[in-house]
């Protein structure tokens, strides 16, 4: 690793965590929107009713705004980092979503899932270690 890569990596990690946090909250808002419809089994016969209820719910639209912000941050990241680094690194959502689900939705996370989350954390760290390849390209 060369001189600039420490700051480069720090900025990339900060941007990815921001992007993944926005994406995870987007997921949380979609889930809250889906829960607020009161329909827990969507089939063909009640699909229109489900669609009408979810589109009249603010959580869905807040989720869509978060997803758009997430998309443009992803394009910004790709302009600075290789896809083979950015794609594995953006798996932070798999780490953030379970915590949001526990805190805001009262869901329980199975031990096998925790084992999977630990493997994902190791993978994200490994990807981050190989991020500093595009020297000299400033991160936004």
């Amino acid at each position: 690793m060369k001189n600039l890569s420490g700051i480069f990596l720090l900025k990339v990690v900060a941007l990815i965590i921001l992007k993944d946090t926005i994406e995870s909250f987007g997921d949380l808002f979609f889930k809250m929107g889906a829960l607020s419809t009161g329909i827990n089994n969507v089939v063909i016969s009640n699909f229109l009713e489900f669609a009408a209820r979810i589109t009249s719910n603010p959580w869905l639209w807040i989720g869509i705004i978060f997803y758009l912000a997430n998309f443009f941050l992803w394009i910004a990241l790709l302009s600075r980092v290789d896809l083979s680094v950015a794609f594995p690194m953006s798996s932070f959502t798999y780490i953030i979503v379970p915590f949001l689900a526990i805190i805001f939705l009262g869901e329980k996370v199975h031990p096998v899932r925790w084992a999977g989350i630990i493997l994902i954390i190791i993978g994200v760290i490994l990807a981050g270690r190989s991020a500093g390849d595009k020297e000299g390209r400033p991160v936004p």
Partner: protein
Amino acid sequence: MSVKLVLLILLGELFICSAQFLFKTGADRLKFHGLNTIQEYIFFVRSSLKIPAIWGGLLLNTLAVIVWILVLALVDLSLAIPLDSVHYILILVGSRFFLKERLTWERVAATLFIAGGIALVAVG
């Protein structure tokens, strides 16, 4: 699994991965200074919407969502989620061959750990 289902899944993977390769190709052509102010962010969003490859990626992503909904209509969600880990491996291989990125052992190991982790999250 029927032949139809396997073909649908392959088509979905093809759309999802090609969308990412198009996003990356488009992002490499982007020129912007930073994202420190609202003005800079708006300038960045406008410039990215002028790049055809990014629109192409969005179109392929939309097609992928449609294929994904068809797949979910045929199989259980718990069977479909581990497919997420397949993207990671295809993206890694595609980055090497289509985008000519350098694959270090760390990048390969990172992808394998995450793919394994997602499979565990899916079965857990």
